[in-house]
């Protein structure tokens, strides 16, 4: 302590120099750097502003200024009078219950609504890093069972609702989520099989993955809807939705297998060898050492696969299953509203966009986190 007191005093510290002043203030400097940096850039900016302005004015007039927002009692005459000039958003409040929940009994539609809420909560919980534990699997199993019970009913005073009356957003979410929940374990097994040293197993897995990935999803769905009954013994009749779900699981399995395989390749050899040195069996080694690392590597591409998958569920329209897009297309079969399909597609598009955009943002934030770690 005392020695410090004998040291000579520090000279006055020099403060940091002020930042150089931008020429002409903050905004002008920004405009100069980003919009008018050179003559070609300025021309481009002006051209884009002109086109953007024109598009915005047109959209404003059609979508807001001249639009019909609400009509009373399924009467579309106000809309038809403005056809081509203004949008008819009134079709949305008129039809949204059918678009969202299909032909599910009207008084019971709180059940699919609750199922959708559970789905969203499930996704939200799964996206949090602090919940990435073993208990998450139990949570998923519990949530999926609860959703099944809600949709089917038949107990505790809930009336039983058969699958062919399900429709809309819950069906889209069920196809995508169950497809992922069952396709993911399948994908892991196939990815392991494809890297196996046993030639018969390896070639079976390669055959499965390449066959599924080589053909369009529609042909798989056709197979599920037309060919599958031919392959079943007499008297066995599997519901159409379930058949489509099986096709989706097989489809997801093949794509997820390739993603997981990428992760497995990224795990260093030493990790496998360390597992061998500890005397772990094949399954112990993979479950405890390799897979946790491999899957962490590929979480962003997994989310991207899930986005693609969520969008692909709309293809069931072609085999006549009532998902969100099919209910939207059916809602405008009603002659009164026939000519307002653009508005309905915009409404459904917003729903799809919200889900996909949230997921793609999430995937990007994960990649950014990995970049900084």
């Amino acid at each position, binding site marked *: 302590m005392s020695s410090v007191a004998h040291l000579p005093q520090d000279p006055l510290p020099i403060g940091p120099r002020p930042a150089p002043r931008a020429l002409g203030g903050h905004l002008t400097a920004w405009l100069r750097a*980003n919009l008018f940096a050179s003559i070609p850039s300025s021309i481009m900016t002006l051209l884009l502003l002109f086109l953007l302005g024109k598009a915005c004015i047109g959209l404003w007039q059609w979508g807001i200024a001249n639009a019909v927002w609400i009509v009373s009692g399924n009467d579309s005459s106000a809309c038809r009078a403005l056809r081509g000039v203004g949008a008819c958003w009134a079709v949305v409040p008129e039809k949204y219950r059918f678009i969202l929940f299909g032909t599910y009994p009207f008084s019971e539609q709180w059940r699919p609504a609750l199922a959708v809420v559970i789905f969203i909560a499930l996704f939200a919980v799964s996206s949090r890093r602090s919940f990435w534990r073993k208990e998450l699997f139990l949570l998923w199993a519990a949530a999926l069972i609860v959703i099944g019970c809600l949709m089917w009913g038949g107990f505790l005073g809930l009336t039983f609702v058969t699958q062919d009356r399900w429709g809309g957003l819950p069906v889209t979410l069920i196809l995508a989520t169950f497809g992922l929940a069952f396709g993911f374990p399948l994908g892991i097994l196939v990815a392991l099989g494809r890297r196996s*040293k046993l030639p018969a*197993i390896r070639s079976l897995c390669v055959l499965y993955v390449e066959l599924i990935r080589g053909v369009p999803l529609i042909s798989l769905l056709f197979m599920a809807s037309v*060919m599958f009954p031919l392959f079943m013994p007499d008297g066995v009749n599997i519901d159409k939705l379930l058949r489509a779900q099986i096709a989706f699981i097989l489809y997801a399995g093949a794509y997820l297998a390739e993603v997981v395989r990428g992760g497995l390749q990224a795990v260093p050899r030493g990790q496998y060898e360390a597992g061998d040195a500890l005397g772990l069996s094949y399954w112990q080694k993979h479950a405890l050492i390799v897979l946790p690392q491999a899957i962490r590597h590929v979480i962003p591409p997994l989310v991207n696969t899930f986005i693609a998958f969520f*969008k692909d569920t709309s293809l069931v329209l072609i085999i006549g299953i009532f998902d969100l897009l099919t209910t939207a*297309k059916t809602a405008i079969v009603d002659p009164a509203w026939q000519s307002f399909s653009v508005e309905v597609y915009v409404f459904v598009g917003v729903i799809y966009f919200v889900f996909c955009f949230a997921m793609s943002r999430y995937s990007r934030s994960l990649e950014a986190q990995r970049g900084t770690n």
Partner: protein
Amino acid sequence: MTTSTPKRPPARSSSRTWRLSLSDPRVAGLFWQILVVGIAVAIVAFLWSNAIHNLSVRRISTGFAFLGREAGMPIADSWIDYTPKDTYLRAFIVGIVNTLRVAVIGIVLATVIGTLVGIARLSSNWLLARLAAVYVEVLRDLPLLLQLLFWYVLMQGLPAARQAWKPVEGVYLSNRGLILPSVPLHEANWWTILALVAGLIVFTLVRRRLIAQQMLDGRARPAWPYALGLVVALPALVSLLSGANWSIMLPELRGFNFVGGLTLAPEYFALLIALVTYTSAFIAEIVRSGIQAVPRGQSDAAKALGLKRSFVLQHIVLPQALRVIIPPMTSQYLNLTKNSSLAVAVGYQDIVSVANTTLNQTGQAIESIALIMMVFLTISLGISLFMNWYNARIALVER
């Protein structure tokens, strides 16, 4: 046999003798393989026997004999001659041609638009970069089928042929689709096209030779005089000599429809727009990440050497970016081709649509779906082989 396990501890006494126990890796390997293959074979056999039984109950004969029967299926939009009196085989060929027509043109357009948007995303112009980002984000986050239905509905909402929009002379947009002016191909014109192709091939060979000579002595030899001679002058000369007729044929409105010109039916046009815009959003991201993957130092170093801007892009940045771009691009091309099967939703008769109609008319479900799969597996294989060849060509040559 299939039981060699190369990484076994060498110091095991039983390494040569076979123990009948699952703790011997060779026995375990054999056991698991027999089990899995056995299950797979059993499932296939079970399904197959059911199928045989069900087909005989429903009196559906198996095999491809139905391909020779009269299809009775109208196909509106076809590039090869077809009437409903033709056979199923011919209908399938029309379907395949229609699939290839939308896939090939779609791939070319999506590559061009995607590349432009990808470069625009990296633009120093903030507005351009933002707009490109919005384009990518919106198109990527909506299902393709929804976009397709949306475009198709817009197409149907266009005015009738008599009130068609006419943005430029000879181009009409109506609910009959997009009508473009065309150049009718007379017989004499084929000689010119042949000359152009021959000129291009010879020019490629000449250019390769010039580059080989430059490799020897380091002196650059200009290739443009050869290009002028072989690709421009030669076809022009042939065109003059053979008396080719290159007059442009403008479409004309007669009655309720257009005569002459090239018609893109609304189904085809909607499918093409949907496929091109959707895929171009993905290609834009691939191009962007490819360009960003080239370290800045590369172009800085090239500029420091005094190389021209266009030379830097062509010879320094692009070859390195392409190495990152090509593999994911291949899978986008495959996706576009597979997605073209959504045509069935708007009634454009591609292979899937034709097979679906055939399936409903004849009940030959297994054969029809097998044909779809065969066609797509062949196309996928073709694209993969071509892109792998191209990828190998541009790959980094290491010692």
